[in-house]
């Protein structure tokens, strides 16, 4: 993980112009981050089951996190609120 991360950070200093001129690299750089994060959201929720105490807290907390972040753009507040809601709902329904 260390090697891959540092290699990615060092790549443009080594192959500066070729990277800048590559349309596909530029396209991936623009489109990849949002989609990768969405895949990671699904990944972190992979153990969610159809039990009431599992999918309800996950769905409500995720919707709340997204809604609050779309409205107020305060990352830390959105995360704390979403996590708190999840913990409460899980304690209540689980």
């Amino acid at each position, binding site marked *: 993980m260390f090697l891959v*991360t540092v290699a990615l950070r060092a790549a*443009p200093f080594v192959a500066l112009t070729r990277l800048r001129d590559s349309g596909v690299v530029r396209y991936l750089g*623009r489109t990849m*981050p949002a*989609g990768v994060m969405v895949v990671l959201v699904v*990944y972190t929720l992979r153990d969610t089951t159809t039990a009431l105490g599992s999918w309800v807290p996950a769905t409500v907390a*995720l919707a709340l996190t997204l809604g609050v972040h779309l409205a107020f753009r305060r990352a830390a507040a959105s*995360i704390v609120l979403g996590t708190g809601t*999840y913990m409460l709902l899980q304690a209540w329904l689980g």
Partner: protein
Amino acid sequence: MSTSPSTSAEIRAEIRKGLADCSTVGLGLVPLGLAFGVLMTQAGFDWWWAPVFSLVIYAGSMEFLAIGLLTAVTPLYSLAAAAFLVNFRHVFYGLSFPLEAIRSRLGRLYAVYALTDEVYAITATKRRAEMTGPRTLTIAITCQSLWVIPGVIGALVGTALPEGLDGLQFALTALFAVLAVDAWRSSGDLPAPVIGLVCGLIAAVVAPDQMLIVGLCGFVGVLLVRYAWLQRTGRAERPGRTNRPGSDVG
């Protein structure tokens, strides 16, 4: 090209500027660093793993992911592939980073290693000619400190909390959801996160044990097909569109 500061008074002034540069973006690292530390010890790691992660991996979202991946004993190639796909955006950061301002070889190596989203976001908004070596290095070091130290504090807090606090792991889901929204906002491209969602869900059903890698590779595969299709229909990437920084930790 910037003129490099020579007297110690000038260097001190540049360091002060660097510290001031970190005031907004850098402080955003603190709550996330705390959360990272808490999650780390709640997952069963000793507290000192938090600074080890933050020095060895030093890429926030990857560190959060690594907690779960390492507890699940994920194979090395899987870890490397995940790191490559999650951190791919870093390829662009060097293009506008004022590396030439740093004189010492060691300083340059450190700056490349520590070129996170935050450091990029701070330096990218400044005029390149104003960025001196001491100022750039101060930004890099301050950002890493604002990530590592809260991580240690969070880890110690996590040790004090009752073990296995239920539901705390949702912080990771919320973090990625927030980052997805921010990344979507800065790219303005809605199909990409939708493709990501579909690929993630399919991977979760088809290959639950290899979900992360299958989902990420499938997503990039579909993106590449889409790129080829956009090229053919003449709606390819407009030139001159620059990549803006994400708000991710590292």
